[in-house]
């Protein structure tokens, strides 16, 4: 082949190629033109929408609150939204519980703790189409600031706590945006067991609730439970303070197990090891020996029992009482039962809303008690059980099923959910329990029960160092380890007694709930360390 020929061939090729390229270019140009046109159109549209949106300053996502300014703005609480406020313009901060858009309107349910109110964003003089669209797209559980007019409604809004008014929204700003997907739906979490079944609606199981505790705690039921729990603590403190008790704080890291070494957590403590307190037992007794006369203590208590039951936790809040008495330990029982009755009365009188809120999801009968509190002796209880066909020895400890059965029998006979069982067999109680002077097989000890489950264990304590040493030896306890405790009784110790209550159990049984995890904010059990 000559050079020319080659050139000719390539020219031809080039020509063919350029033709193709031309076509390509043309096409691309067309495309670009179209694109430009589209963009222009879009931009124009956007411009027009922006121009159209007269309300664009009345909604949006607020910049993060970093304390830039002190706004002179009073926020009204949802529970205060009553017909008295009708036609006022108010500001409100709440969560978006649900939102439902319907044409030119968007209905929101705004929630604040256990209260909620209906709000309406409607296209009109105050709100634009875009604003309604924005409101409808706010994710559930986001926190919003709303300015709205309070309006009376003709028909009660059954689904809200504020049934007589609704809010006509004029401005709405998102303060904190929630992620669109929630790990559980609040409405599912408060649905009573079995209720949603016909409609195929979901309920949330306990573990899912606990795994997402922060969201679960927002439910009306949880809000009510923990407000009531706070009430129990407050009533406990108030009652005892009025009776002349002193609140004390005791260490939780201790050198020796207080009640049997088996169920105690060991922690490493520098070059040696220590234990987590199973109860403030020894310390509250030492305070009695130190002339504090009547003491109480509210704080964490640890049990390393590997039991996965509805009523055991590995860490719970103990309400402990210890007091010196004059001649008979029944003075202590009376003092404790009076305190419990004050708590029950306080809850009944001041926490009706909370009790009813919990009842909606977990129905139970109202808690019943007598004044003065019923006190049964252990032998009477065993006789009642024998009569009901239960076979058990006179000095045998009560099994859980028998405890519950006894609770039913007592309820049937005396119509009370709260009673004291006195004079337990000595053999089933800790070493520091005072033996009964009339029958050495029994002891001056007692348990208290709510709805057939134990909430308090207590006794008159041995305040004599000699007897205490004997009892400890009988229980094969290493005297060296409890030396400091025994020594406290050598320099004059008043007769005294007391008891310890589990806060979570009291709340659970008062409300008739089935699981102590429901009344523990962040429960700890052998299988749960988080959240």
């Amino acid at each position, binding site marked *: 082949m000559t050079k020319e020929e080659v050139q000719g061939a390539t020219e031809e090729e080039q020509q063919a190629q350029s033709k193709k390229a031309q076509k390509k270019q043309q096409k691309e140009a067309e495309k670009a033109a179209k694109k430009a046109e589209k963009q222009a159109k879009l931009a124009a549209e956007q411009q027009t929408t922006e121009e159209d949106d007269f309300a664009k300053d009345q909604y949006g996502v607020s910049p993060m609150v970093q304390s830039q300014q002190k706004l002179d703005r009073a926020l009204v609480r949802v529970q205060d939204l009553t017909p008295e406020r009708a036609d006022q313009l108010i500001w409100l901060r709440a969560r978006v519980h649900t939102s439902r858009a319907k044409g030119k309107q968007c209905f929101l349910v705004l929630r604040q703790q256990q209260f909620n109110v209906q709000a309406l964003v409607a296209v009109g003089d105050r709100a634009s189409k875009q604003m309604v669209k924005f409101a409808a797209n706010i994710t559930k559980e986001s926190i919003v600031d709303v300015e709205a007019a309070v309006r009376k409604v003709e028909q009660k809004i059954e689904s809200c706590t504020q049934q007589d008014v609704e809010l006509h929204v004029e401005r709405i700003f998102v303060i904190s945006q929630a992620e669109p997907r929630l790990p559980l739906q609040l409405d599912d979490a408060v649905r009573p067991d079995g209720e949603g079944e016909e409609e195929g609606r979901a309920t949330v199981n306990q573990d899912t609730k606990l795994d997402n505790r922060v969201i679960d705690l927002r439910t009306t039921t949880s809000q009510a439970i923990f407000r009531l729990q706070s009430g129990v603590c407050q009533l406990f403190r108030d009652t005892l303070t009025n009776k002349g008790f002193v609140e004390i704080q005791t260490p939780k890291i201790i050198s020796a197990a207080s009640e049997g070494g088996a169920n105690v957590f060991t922690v490493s403590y520098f070059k040696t090891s220590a234990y987590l307190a199973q109860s403030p037992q020894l310390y509250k007794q030492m305070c009695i020996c130190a002339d504090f006369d009547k003491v109480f203590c509210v704080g964490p208590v640890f049990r390393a029992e590997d039991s996965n039951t509805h009523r055991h936790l590995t860490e719970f809040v103990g309400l402990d009482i210890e007091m010196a008495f004059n001649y008979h330990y029944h003075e202590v029982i009376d003092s404790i039962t009076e305190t419990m009755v004050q708590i029950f009365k306080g809850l009944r009188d001041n926490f009706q809303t909370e009790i009813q809120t919990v009842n909606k999801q977990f129905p139970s009968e109202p808690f019943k008690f007598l004044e003065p509190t019923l006190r049964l002796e252990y032998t009477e209880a065993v006789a009642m059980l024998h009569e009901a066909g239960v076979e058990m020895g006179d000095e045998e400890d009560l099994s859980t099923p028998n405890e*519950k059965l006894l609770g*039913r029998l007592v309820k049937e006979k005396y119509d009370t959910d709260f009673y004291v069982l006195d004079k337990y067999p000595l053999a089933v109680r800790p070493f520091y329990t005072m033996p009964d002077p009339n029958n050495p097989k029994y002891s001056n000890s007692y348990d208290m029960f709510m709805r057939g489950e134990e909430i308090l264990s207590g006794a008159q304590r041995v305040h004599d160092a000699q007897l205490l040493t004997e009892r400890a030896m009988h229980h094969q306890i290493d005297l060296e380890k409890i030396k400091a405790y025994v020594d406290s009784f050598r320099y004059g110790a008043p007769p005294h007694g007391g008891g310890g209550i589990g806060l979570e159990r009291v709340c659970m049984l008062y409300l008739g709930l089935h699981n102590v995890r429901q009344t523990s904010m962040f429960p700890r059990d052998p299988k749960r360390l988080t959240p």
Partner: protein
Amino acid sequence: MALRELSSLEKYLGLKKPNKYSTQGEKKVPVLQNSNGPPLVGLVTIACYLVKDAKRSELLGDSAESRAVVQQWLEYRVTRLNNLTKDDVKTILKELNLYLQDKAYLAENQFTLADILMYYGIQPLIVDLAIQEKEQYVNLTRWFDHMQHYPGVRRHLPPVVVLRNRIYTSRHH
């Protein structure tokens, strides 16, 4: 088991001379060797014979209807109350509880052999019930308590406690 039932029944009927029984087969079916005839085989057959022998045939029902009902429950007793699984027990307790809702005895208002044999047969199931369950099958336990206190019936069986008052009234606990 069946032999003790039959000797208790004899005593209830007031038969003076106790009969001699043997058993046959793996299931230990009771056999009564009669002096003047062929051997009688099976719990119900022998029981009916004893009733006739004691001249207490009213215990088999005194009308055509009640005789039929008595036979039906005797059959139920020997066919249903054997080799029970947990589910069977529940079904039987439920069935009887429902049936006895408006009756004092299995054959309505008349005490019959069906009550005696059913009491002997159901006793082992009732013994194992918790108080709450006894309350759940309240009609059955009412009838049962009546039977164990019926003059002369209980014999070889220990009494079972049945509470007269309901103690599980609420929905919870």
